[in-house]
């Protein structure tokens, strides 16, 4: 059997190439897994953002419902016992011809 004997130089070269190859593979795998991890994170954040925006829209609509003229009128009359102003109770200020 014939056995080849390699010099240290060659062994180092091959080892270097192997390390470079493995490094690249490792980086590629890390890059891929990191992309996926960041994908999850971005997706979660986008979901959160969307949820917050929906919450804002919901709260705006609720505020609008609470401030609806019908509700304000009812509260003023029923709970605060306010009465509608009579024409003779109104005092106008401004340019009025006497």
């Amino acid at each position: 059997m014939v056995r080849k004997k390699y010099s240290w130089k060659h062994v180092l070269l091959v080892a270097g190439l192997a390390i470079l190859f493995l490094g690249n593979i490792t980086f590629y795998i890390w890059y891929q897994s990191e992309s996926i991890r960041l994908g999850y994170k971005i997706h979660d954040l986008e979901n959160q953002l969307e949820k917050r925006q929906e919450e804002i829209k919901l709260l705006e609509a609720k505020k609008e419902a609470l401030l609806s003229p019908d509700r304000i009128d009812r509260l003023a009359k029923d709970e605060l016992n306010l009465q509608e102003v009579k024409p003779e109770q109104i005092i106008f200020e401004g340019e009025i011809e006497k």
Partner: protein
Amino acid sequence: MKIVVDRSPVLSGQNRKKTRMIFIFLLAWFLVIGFRLIDLQVLNHKKLKQEVIEQNQDLITIWPTRGTIFDRQGRILARSLPAVSIFFSPTRGEDLKDQLKSIYELKSILNLSETEINRLVNSIEKRKRFTWVKRKIPLEQAEKIKGLKLSGIYLINENKRFYPQGRLAAHVLGGVNIDDAGLAGVEYYYDSALRGREGQQLIMRDARRKEYYIETIKETQPGQDIYLTIDSNLQYLAEKELRQAIEKFKASWGTVIIMSPASGEILAMASYPDYDPNYFPPPPEAMVNRAIQYTYEPGSTAKVVTAAAARELAGISYNTYYDCRTGSMTFGGTSVRDHVRLGILSFPDVFIHSSNVGSIQIAEIIGEKNLYHMFKAFQFGEKTGIDLPGEEAGIVHPLEKWRKSSLRVAIGYELAATPLQILRAMNVYATGGYLVRPKVGLIGPYTQQNISDGSLRSDESRQPVISEKTARELVDLVFKPAVERGTGNQARLDGYELAGKTGTAQKFDPALRAYSISRHVASFVGFAPADHPLISMIVVIDEPKGPQYGGQVAAPVFREIARKALLYYHEPPQKLPENMILARQTKESGVTD
């Protein structure tokens, strides 16, 4: 390179045999794997690829959120909010009993009726792959169901239309169906703009079905927001006063429209009976927007056109007099009468006191042709072109079909019009002779303009109908006095000058084939203030019980709405009303005098 040759035998005969056996075994093993790989990668490639795509890729349609509808001040009138829908899809291999178990567990949570349960059971028994359990439930309820992890029960995110102001402006807004498609009102008219355009996304999922990458295939175009010309405060005011009048007079229905005279922008459009668009569709009788989808014989409010024809086309002088002493007259096989015997009346007084006898005499002078042309010039018998669906055109018979009795058009019979058409006709006097196109929608944000500062643009498509001189004269000599001392005096508002015209139309009874003496449509149309109109308005009340006349039923409603609307727009009285104090703050003392 050095080559070292080892001449000693590497393996003995026994070992060589073992090595060969291992080699053959490994070769066979690799062949099996190879064949399996060919099976997976080549022979079943298509099918398996499809399975993988199904497992980790989803091409989903993204439905855009429907646009929000705002009033002219930016208040939300309609908005789509997130909701969750529940559907059932049977799990493979699960028996019918287990499938039904999930449904029965939902019964109490979703408050499902027996009919709904039967529908679901029926669908499951028919092995349907997809069945809606309940659409658009609140998020809290959905979270509860999600927590149960029921087999075959899935949740899907949707949107639900919400009208925060409830019944306010219901007929203008309309409503949507369960799939958020507009079915009435602005929701229908502007459906394509509000709806937006759906998009598509490719979603990549991992082995646990968790999303990790989203690629947009087709961009979603969200629904466009729409601003209306409606003023929520004025709308509420109109609805409230109308409801009170309907209840007071036990009337069948009623409508109020308030318009900005120059621009044609509708500030309020109330129709009763009304409905809550959150629970659409309403009963059919509440669905009708009486302001535009109902025609009636307007009665004396149509005299605003007769007066214009008399001046513009027949040149009738204001100093002509008409004998109305008999209180009734017969012509063309029909008779007309006045509410009281009015004596001899001048041209303005005929309209101020709304004499039918006098009006017919004037109509005879005007002539059929001129009268017809003036009604056509005011565009009766044509849609106004308002941006709302289902508008009625009304009826004005063609001149060749007119009989002698058709002169009754002059007093608002033998023609059909919508309340909006009558308002638009009166509005001609408020604009100095122009017919404007009414509108409710403004796509895009509305600049915060106050109507009282007069900055609202005039309608660019407005058409001149009568001269400014005629319009001004008729306002001063007819429509102002009609409110001051005529049939519309219950619309009189202290401190302000109003212009208007009453209308009391007998309703035709198809059973009797005659006009009823007990069923009327009472109306009042006018504008305020008379000299620089901020609002024009019509009030129509159908079949009031008790008082029947427009001046008694509709005019007080007009007065109350006008009073509050003018206050709302900070329009001070033109003259100081009696018993009213003029207050002015002095700089020095801060005391009012």
